[in-house]
Structure formats: C-alpha cells, structure tokens
C-alpha cells in the first residue's frame, strides 16, 4: 500500500488482517474453527472473507468439537504446519483443556525437544455484554499456569495485528486472547501498519508515563487504567500505565524499572481476583522490590464470583475506573 493516509481500523479487522498476512506469507498457516468459513466468517466476523480468498481447505469449518479442533491443530503443528485454531469463546477452553495443557503445552518438553507445537489458539473473552456466566470469563491464568504455553492479550488494533502475526510464526503454542468488547467498537479502533507488521512477544508497552504509581494491566483493562490515570492526573497524581501485551513471556524488566521509579504499583485485570495473574505480579514485585516499594501492591480484578447476567450485577463484577483510582489511593495511605 503506497498511501500515506492513516489506516484506522477496528480491532476485529486488524485481527483479520493479521491472519490474511500470515496466510499470504506462508502456505503452512491454516485456520480451523466453528463457523469460521463463509458465508458467516465466524460468529464475530473475524475471519470474514478469508475462506473465499484462501479456500475452505485452509479456512476449515469444524464440527462443534473443541477437543477435536485443538487436537487436530496439535498434530498438524507437530507435522510442520502452523495452525490457528479458534475457540469461539474463552469459557469453552474448559471443554478442551486436556489438549491445551497436557498436549500443546507439554509435548516439546516430553519429547526432549524433538517435536514442537507452533500453533495459536485464538479465543474471544470478556464480560460486559450480558452473556452470563459461561460466555464471559477470562481464564488466562489457566494457561499461564501451564509451562509450555505462551499467553498474549492485545489492547489495541495495532497490537492485535502485530502480536497475532508474531504468535502465528512463534515456535511455541500461544493462547491469543481477544477482548470481545473491543472487536468492532469504534472507540477502540486505531491506526494499524500495513503488511507484515509484527510486535514481539515479551515486550511490554508503556502506554503512559508517570512518576507516582505504576498501573500494570493487559487487554481491555488497559483502557480502564488510562481513564483512571486521567482522573488521577486531575488530582495531581502521576500514574504510569504499562500494557504487558504478553503474560508469558513476561517483561519483568519493564515492570521492575517502572516500580523502582514510582515505588507504588496496582495490578488490574478482568479475571477474578483470587489466584488471578495479578497475584503472581504482586508477588513478583514484592519479592524483587521489597525495601524499595513504599506500599503493598494493590490488586484490582473481577469479583470472586461467576459473571452475573443482570446489567447492574455484571457492572459490579467488572473492575471500574473508580476501583483503580481507589486502589491507587490505598497505596498512598
């Protein structure tokens, strides 16, 4: 593309473009998942047009069989392909967790490095659309707790493309979590570089610089943190916001450098707080920076409940800007 016009697009389109680019670059890349081929192009339209462009051999509609989907991806990956498997909604990961944690994650290790599983599991996740308890959850901690899996969650259109292209060409299995609310909402649309654009895994993004407190987050909650930082700025508190982009590998250097500077940290994610990834982050910061930090790390996450249906309850479940602001104030007590 020779135009210099900024390419503004929604997150869903950026994800589509990442798969388009990867399939164009490497014929070993193929997609499989429920309803992903035309005419529907996926229930969220993320794979729209791809089966027309690349054929239904490479953009394969599957039965509603999550174990069979992930299993087929695992075998094909060992045999030299680069499958991108779609699990429609993250809660359904529970249906095929054996194939993820016992096979995709462990096969390189169990074989002593003889066989590898370069595949991506794309899945949409998140509450906020009143889908109830079984279509709304963030379960990234499952995969983080499975050595062998990498875990990526983008927070912008550009990162969604760049991180997905990197994930598809990564030598290891990647769980790629797509915040559902961000797919087509113009509020999250952004400029996306054309062509083979890649963002490396394991490199956090400092989305806002600050000096008084570090807000560490990923996915859609990065935007909650940015809003909180705005409010705090109005009150004279300067918050740095770090978007982790990937949880495994984790950019600890950026986290520790920031918290060394600000001496205060709040970790924010949508998954339930108890045993969420924030617990790990909090623990790592305490281990590394005890004596440097001025206050205990605060955690803000989903409430320790299933995701409720009623709008007011669902909103109460989700971390809100005011929760983040309150947590920052708690580090200043």
């Amino acid at each position, binding site marked *: 593309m020779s135009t210099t016009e900024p390419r503004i697009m929604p997150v869903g389109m950026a994800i589509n473009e990442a798969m388009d680019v990867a399939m164009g670059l490497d014929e070993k890349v*193929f997609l499989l998942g429920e309803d992903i081929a035309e005419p529907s192009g996926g229930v969220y339209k993320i794979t729209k047009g791809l089966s027309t462009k690349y054929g239904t051999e490479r953009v394969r509609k599957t039965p509603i069989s999550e174990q069979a989907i992930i*299993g*087929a991806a695992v*075998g094909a990956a060992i045999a030299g392909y680069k499958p991108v498997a779609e699990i429609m909604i993250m809660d359904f990961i529970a249906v095929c967790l054996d194939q993820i944690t016992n096979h995709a994650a462990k*096969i390189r290790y169990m074989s*002593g490095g003889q066989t590898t599983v370069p595949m991506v599991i794309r899945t949409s996740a998140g509450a906020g659309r009143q889908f109830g308890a079984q279509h709304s959850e963030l379960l990234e901690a499952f995969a983080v707790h499975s*050595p062998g899996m990498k875990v990526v969650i983008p927070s912008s259109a550009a990162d969604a493309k760049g991180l997905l292209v990197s994930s598809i060409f990564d030598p290891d299995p990647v769980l790629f979590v797509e915040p559902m609310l961000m797919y087509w909402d113009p509020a999250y649309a952004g400029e996306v570089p054309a062509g083979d654009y890649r963002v490396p895994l394991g490199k956090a993004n400092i989305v806002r610089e600050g000096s008084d407190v570090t807000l560490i987050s990923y996915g859609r909650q990065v935007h909650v943190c940015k809003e909180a930082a705005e409010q705090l700025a109005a009150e004279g508190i300067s918050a740095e916001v770090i978007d982790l982009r990937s949880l495994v590998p984790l950019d600890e250097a950026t986290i520790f450098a920031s918290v060394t500077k600000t001496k205060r940290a709040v970790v924010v994610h949508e998954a339930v707080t108890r045993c969420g990834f924030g617990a790990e982050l909090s623990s790592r910061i305490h281990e590394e920076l005890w004596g440097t930090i001025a206050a205990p790390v605060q955690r803000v996450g989903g409430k320790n409940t299933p995701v409720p249906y009623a709008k007011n309850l669902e909103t109460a479940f989700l971390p809100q800007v005011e929760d983040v602001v309150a947590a920052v104030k708690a580090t200043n007590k």
Partner: protein
Amino acid sequence: MATTNRPDAPDRDSLVKMFEIQNKIKITDERFRSMMTSGQIQLIYYSPRGQECISAGYAVHLRPDDYVVTIYRGLHDHIAKGVPMRELWAEFLGRATGTCKGKGGPMHVTHPESGLVVTTGIVGAGIPVANGFGLAAQLSGTDQVTVVNFGDGATNIGAFHEGLNMAAVWKLPVIFVCQNNLYGEHTPMAQSTGVEYISERGASYGMPAVTVNGNDPIAMWKASAEAVARARAGEGPTLIEARTYRFWGHLMGDAMEYMPKEERKAAMAADPVPAYRAWLLENGHATEAELNEIEEQIKAIVDDAVEFALNSPEPSLDELYTDVYEEIIK
C-alpha cells in the same frame, strides 16, 4: 487417486517380520519385568504382553514416514514402529541418552525419525491429535497414513467420539486401532461399555469398522492391509477393533483381583506369540533354525540395549529448563 492394489495374504518376508516384531516385544517385556522383580530397576510400567500381534500386524504395512500415535501401554507400538532399542531402554530408565533425553519416560516416548510421533498418558487423547497428522498429510497431498492406538476404555471418552466424527467428515487417512484387551484399568468392558463390539460404534460416524481377533496375526494383517490401502488412496479412515488380552493387568504390581483367574490362565495358555511360531513352522513358512537365529539376535539386541541404558548418565540438571519453550523462559 486410484485404489492401490490390496494383497490378500502376507508374503514370506512379512510373515517373518511379524515374528521378529512380536518376539522383540515379548523378550523386551520379559526383561523389564524380571529386572523390576529383582529390584534392579524401578519404573512405572504397563506391560503390553499378550498384545504383540496387533502392533506387528499393522506395522508391517507402514513406511518410516507413516505416523504412529500410542498411549502409556505403548511399548509394543514403539518397538513395532522401529524405535531404536538402545534409546528406548534409556528413555524408560530416565537416562540422558533416551529418545527424549530422559524427560518423557515410558508414557511419552517420541521418536519422529521412526514415525513414532506421540505417546500420551491421557486415555483417548491421542485420537484428536492423530487427526492432525492425517490432516497434515491430506493438506500436503502425500499418501502418508497415521495409525492411532488406544484401548477399549478410551472409546467411552469424549475425545474418541469427537475424533472419529471429525476424521470421517474430513475423510482423513487415519486408522483407529482399538486394542480391546477387555479391561479399562480395573473394570471389565461389559460394566463400562454399552455395546458388545467396539466396531459397532463405527456406524455412528459413517466409518468402516471391523472386529478382528487381535491375537491372530494374519487376521490383523489383513484388516490393516485394507485400512492402510483405503487411507493411502484417500478413501478415509477405518476403525479396527482388535480383540486381545493383557497378561499382567493394568499396571505392573497390579494384584489383578478383578480378573478371573481361570480367564487369565486360559489367555496365557493360548499365548499368541508361541502359537504363531508353531504356525509358521507347521506351514513351512520358516525353519526352526531360522526362528532360533532371530530370537538369538533379538536377545543380543536387548542385552546390548540394557547395557547401554544402565551405563548411560542421568540427564544434566541444566536440562530442567530446556525444551519448555524454544528459548529458556523461567
């Protein structure tokens, strides 16, 4: 693609090769059990004794670039597919020289050069993975086939249903070999399974399925010949139920109180490995001297493999963090 020629009887080379594979399995198993019983070695061990003819019967139809997937009771499949004995023994003993550098163990033996691509410890889980190998061959346009082995117990887990359905819908070149040894762990098939024959389940996926006497090498050879030819010709998957019996229960050390003594005694009296030896001799397919020589060669190979494994070092502690990812992530 034209349907390939389907021979209806094994040639002499195949007959002798099956004898060799069966005895390699039998002699290896006997050595493992005697060394465990004498306390020389300790390991988690699922004896394949009694099931030798099944692996030998399909393996003689396979090329090195065909894929085999198996389960924790997989030693017979490892040997049949040609995993080298030294590395196999070393892996079972957790040594650095093992197929997987000692990091996988008996339940995860992997040797891609031989085509032994996955050994899983999860009942039924190899079935969906095998489809991936079949899909890779189909997408690449090769005529490679994949054989996936599992027990009768695995046919009651969801992965079996999902996997066979997908293979049938996509016409994958996969052969599903149910080694029906009549027990799922400690439970007899009749108490866990609603059909008399596992092959009845093929109909619900629109998949050709057959039950054979897995202890009859010629029957197993024939069923495999047909299934492999069908898969190579792009005509889709087959389910083979091979009926057999496991002589030593689920796991070595199993008290086997759930297996009727008379039933086990009868099965062991009808041991298929010596029975096949006698059949080869009676029908003039081989001479006593030839078979003796093969057995002696196998004993020497096993002696050498045991020696090699026992004298091999444990993995270096540096190996703990390697092979989790391509790069080291702690």
